[in-house]
């Protein structure tokens, strides 16, 4: 009798111990509640749960803008085990403040991270260490109305002169060549980045965003000269300062404008606006300085471990899990973007993905985007300057001098 009681007790104790030893937690803060990104993320989480039934995963999905403000609080007050954030200079404040965990060891030991992420590794690196794992990235370029181009007998332009000639034809037909919405400023930076990458190349662009080259430098002046040409001969839609990037799709969808310098995330929005796959297509931003190695804009989205995380082992397990080619392939197929793992399969049915992969994988260098390559304060003033220049090109000198002044203060 007594023996039996001891047995039962020890069994009970055993199960209790077992549960406390095996059931562990993993809390993830993700930043995109839109249908496709949410589905892609949740599928990856489900796959992780299936492989690790002993880990209890909690997911918090917040709106992107809200996440940007909330992260400053939750990193120090109530850190999750994994949070979504952006690489490049956008991660700098948190890395410098010691709020992100150094995962260089994972990058060195993990089979995928150590060999299939070469192209994107530099943007995840700061102070010679790696701080996060990218799950997706996307190309930028020119999205255009293939039907309007065909109606006016315009070919995909591959050179600067070709682009300007296409603009002339479009304007002759009463169509504004480019649409853009600069209310939130960053869209103008996309145009600047491409003009600068095509005029001066990756090294100079990098030097500028790293604070080594002045804005009044002759080479940057050259970029703005090209931009002036683009404003005059190509022109953008009026009132772009009052429109968001989504608002700017309206003139594109109703045929008033024919081109849009954008990232691939915008394709879904064109389709929502009623355009079909036959009506829209993509071309790489054309060459300006002949013979210059082609660099591209390819911002990545990544996941990070806060240094205040409670379950760092599980977090590392998850990051290593989502670095696998199949997971990355599936996730990006759902969201219509590119997998950073070079061994991951891409969705060959999506012409934008196929072209995007072609564009990015053959590029000589990848820029992250102006507001991730330049520090926050420089980015915010720089983008205001770009917008002002687009509306008042005659103020160029004053704008560049002002940006030099900001640069001197920010990079000291």
């Amino acid at each position, binding site marked *: 009798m007594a023996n039996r009681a001891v047995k039962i007790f020890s069994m009970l104790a055993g199960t209790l111990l077992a549960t406390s030893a095996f059931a562990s937690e993993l809390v993830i803060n993700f930043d995109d509640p839109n249908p496709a990104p949410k589905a892609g993320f949740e599928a990856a989480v489900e796959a992780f749960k299936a492989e690790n039934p002993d880990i209890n995963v909690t997911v918090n999905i917040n709106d992107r803008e809200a996440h940007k403000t909330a992260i400053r609080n939750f990193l120090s007050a109530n850190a999750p085990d994994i949070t979504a954030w952006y690489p490049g200079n956008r991660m700098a*404040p948190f890395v410098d403040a010691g*709020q992100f965990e150094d995962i260089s060891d994972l990058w060195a030991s993990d089979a995928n991270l150590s060999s299939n992420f070469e192209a994107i590794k530099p943007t995840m690196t700061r102070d010679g260490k790696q701080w996060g794992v990218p799950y997706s990235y996307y190309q930028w370029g020119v999205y255009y109305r293939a039907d309007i181009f065909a109606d006016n007998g315009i070919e995909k332009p591959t050179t600067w002169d070709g682009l300007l000639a296409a603009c002339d034809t479009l304007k002759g037909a009463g169509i504004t060549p480019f649409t853009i919405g600069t*209310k939130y400023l960053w869209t103008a930076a996309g145009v600047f980045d491409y003009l600068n990458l095509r005029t001066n190349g990756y090294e100079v662009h990098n030097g500028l965003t790293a604070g080594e080259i002045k804005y009044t430098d002759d080479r940057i002046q050259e970029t703005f000269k090209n931009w002036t040409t683009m404003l005059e001969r190509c022109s953008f839609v009026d009132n*772009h*300062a*009052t429109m968001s990037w989504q608002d700017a799709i309206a003139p594109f969808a109703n045929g008033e404008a024919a081109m849009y310098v954008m990232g691939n995330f915008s394709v879904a929005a064109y389709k929502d606006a009623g355009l079909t796959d036959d009506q829209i297509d993509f071309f790489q931003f054309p060459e300006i300085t002949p013979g210059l190695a082609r660099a591209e804009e390819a911002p990545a989205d990544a996941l990070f471990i806060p240094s205040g995380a409670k379950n760092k082992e599980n977090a590392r397990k998850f990051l290593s899990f989502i670095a696998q080619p199949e997971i990355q392939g599936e996730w990006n197929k759902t969201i219509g973007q590119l997998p950073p793992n070079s061994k991951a399969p891409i969705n060959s049915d999506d012409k934008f993905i196929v072209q995007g992969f072609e564009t990015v994988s053959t590029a000589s260098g990848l820029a992250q985007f102006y507001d991730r390559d330049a520090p*926050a304060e420089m980015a915010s003033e720089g983008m205001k300057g770009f917008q002002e220049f687009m*509306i008042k090109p005659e103020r160029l000198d004053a704008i560049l001098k002002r940006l030099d002044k900001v640069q001197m203060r920010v990079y000291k």
Partner: protein
Amino acid sequence: MNSSNQSKSTRSQMRSRQQQIAPWIFLTPAALFFSVYVILPIFQSIWISFYAWDGIGERQWVGFENYIELFDDYRFYTSLKNNILWLVLYMLAVPIGLFIALFLNQNIWGMRFYKSMFFFPFVISQVVVGLIFTWFYNPNFGIIGEIWQFFGATPPSILGDERYVTYGIIFAGLWPQISYCMILYLTGLNNVSSDQIEAGRLDGAKGWRMLRFVILPQLWPATFLAIVVTVIGALRSFDMIAIMTQGGPYGSSNVLSYFMFEQALSEYGFRMGYGSAIAVILFLIMLIFISYFLWVMYQDEKRG
């Protein structure tokens, strides 16, 4: 006899002590919250304004450097200029509110309905007001665009043009502010004594003279309140700008409160010290008005 006298005096002592203590007890919660959420942050802001700090890392003492930079910052002067514009033009809400209140202060059928319609913009959220006006001003599909196109003119891009943008936002902000002033005057008009109006009428006053010398003096408390809320509303204008332009195009519709937010707390804002310096300057400007208002109130109290 002696003992009963004593007990009476202790009782009255206790009562007077109670009367002394009671107000403090009632004041304590409010005073506590006021000091924790208002007074303390003021001093904290002043303190932080002497540091360079990104809000998460190490603070670094920089003395008056933030202020030196601020007074050399063209964005500060743009914001200050816009704040002055707000102050001046927002004041229009007071006379317009008075005019509407006088107009609505009559007894005809359905007046309550009209009053509530005029009061409506104050009830709806500033965010909604901002959005509605953003659509009004849209040159492509807004009402402004329609009107201009009807006359065959190219519509102005009010929120996209640095010359018009601040006026456009102030105009939108005036809408709810006018109804606020109107409601203050409507309650004030209820208290205007009919004896004095009668007396004035006997003395031959009517129209403008009646308004100027009989009614307006009696409306002074309402006017004072309307001016106070309008000045404060103008200085802390923030939501309209955040909704309609985010300070754009290129910062030309910024005001101090939004500039502060942009520097310290927005997507690219990691300058707590600089933001605090802006806040301190805004606080000093407000202090001028607040001390004036307090002085006026004190004078009124003294007169009884």
